[in-house]
């Protein structure tokens, strides 16, 4: 689903990613661990297309599955075949989807429409713009780009209520301005509600577990499983601790250090890292 090949990137002219390669298939959950400042968030932002993160080498190929109407995203089965309009042919054509998309050529909102979701390590506060307001616009902008019919106000609210419920978040919080006045843990939970609503094929979750209390960690872990543990989806989970991985079992664990993947293994690698530290395991 995602093929990262020898990726190099700079931030403020400083090389951070130095030839990083990683291959993620549909149905897989990968965890990335690594010391502070290793470049984990830089990888997430580079995949998301954040301005200021300049790719200096390598490639990223994204091959989203052909989308089927899902209970979450589509209120009704697709009527007729309106696919292939707008940006549609770039994203969902049968042949193209086998070849994959050069992710790095897309603008951030096009990456989202292609099926990428970025869970922020530090979700941004946006005064005056409510979650429901912007998420409805965002969901419909994505749907339009894919040639799907937009959600009505009622359909959207039903979907939002369902996903807020899944994450045990009070629906009223989604009527508030984006992240403003939210606690650290509430922000992370709101990230997952957004992921549920937008229903991506591939999610990069940057330290979604940090800031969560013990109960919230379980709720968020189960939420990630419910939303993303599907044969046609995949997740890249950036974390410092085993505790989230107790709920969201990774198929692969990688150590990112000095801007590249220095070690890969199965779920047991995370346990070993927790026991012995990065120095010993990935020196």
């Amino acid at each position, binding site marked *: 689903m995602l093929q990262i090949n020898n990726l190099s990137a700079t931030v403020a002219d400083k090389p951070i990613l130095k030839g990083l390669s990683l291959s993620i298939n549909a149905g897989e959950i990968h965890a990335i661990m690594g010391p502070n400042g290793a470049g984990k968030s830089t990888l997430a932002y580079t995949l*998301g*297309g*954040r*301005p200021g993160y300049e790719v200096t080498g390598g490639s990223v190929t994204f091959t989203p599955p052909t989308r089927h109407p899902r209970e979450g995203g589509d209120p009704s089965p697709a009527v007729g075949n309106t696919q292939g309009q707008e940006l549609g042919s770039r994203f969902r054509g049968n042949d193209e989807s086998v070849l994959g998309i050069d992710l790095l050529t897309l*603008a*951030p*909102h096009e*990456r*989202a*429409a292609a099926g990428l979701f*970025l869970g*922020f390590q530090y*979700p*941004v*506060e*946006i*005064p*005056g*713009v409510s979650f429901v*307001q*912007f*998420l409805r*616009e*965002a*969901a419909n*902008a*994505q749907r339009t*780009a894919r040639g799907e019919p937009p959600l009505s106000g009622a359909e959207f609210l039903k979907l939002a209520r369902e996903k807020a419920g899944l994450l045990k978040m009070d629906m009223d919080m989604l009527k508030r*301005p*984006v992240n403003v006045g939210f606690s650290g843990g509430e922000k992370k939970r709101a990230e997952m509600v*957004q992921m549920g609503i*937008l229903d991506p094929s591939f999610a990069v979750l940057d330290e979604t577990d940090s800031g969560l209390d013990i109960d919230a960690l379980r709720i968020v872990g189960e939420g990630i499983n419910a939303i993303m543990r599907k044969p046609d989806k995949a997740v890249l989970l950036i974390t410092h601790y085993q505790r989230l991985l107790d709920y969201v079992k990774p198929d692969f664990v990688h150590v990112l250090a000095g801007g590249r993947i220095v070690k890969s293994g199965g779920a047991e690698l995370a346990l070993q890292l927790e026991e012995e530290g990065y120095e010993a395991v990935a020196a």
Partner: protein
Amino acid sequence: MTVAALPTRKDEAFRYADLDALAGVWPVAREEILVPSGQSTSLSVVEDSEGAVARHLVIELEAGASFDLRILNCGAAFGRIAVDAQLGEGASFTLGAAQLGSGVQVLEIVTEVSHLAPNAVSRQTIRSVLAGQATGTYLGKVAVARGALGTDSEQSVRAMLLSRTATANAKPELEIYADDVKCAHGCAVGELDAQGLFYLESRGLPPELAKQLMLQAFIAEAFSGAADEERLQALALARLGELV
């Protein structure tokens, strides 16, 4: 009645005006509004025409009167709205204004709010969004007369520049001849928050739509509580769509 001479750059209240455009609409008629004692009135002024516009509203509020004035200044050329308000005892004056400019537009709001008697309240909220080479100006004088005890006045002035070549001028000014008054003002000029924009875009909003949402939030305060708030917001939103 003699026609006043065309102002020059030396006239403080016309310092940033487009004087050539002004010449075409000079002299500017005084539009006088009287709010009788104890009464409440509101007015929404929407200037969105193609040509140059200059207006001068002179509002007299008698004791206990209140006036709620909202302005959307977003015409295609020079747009100047001058407002003089004279507040009697216990009167209340609200001004909420948004100026939305692009191209080489010159937009300005020039106010002189006089607290003539005790315990009057004035609230001014001015929001400007400026793209291209547009200029947006707010000159706002608050004068508190001798004996106008208990005056309560606030000016909140903020501008958002969407390009390096746009200009915002803001000059709140206080002239106080009384004790026991509360006069607050705040001024800020800024740019759209890049992190906020990326956050919205990363969720699938095209950049224009993301900017439009953030700008709509930015100007919202100018119209909040207005009788025709929704209409003003909708008109502003449409104009913002052209700016981004």
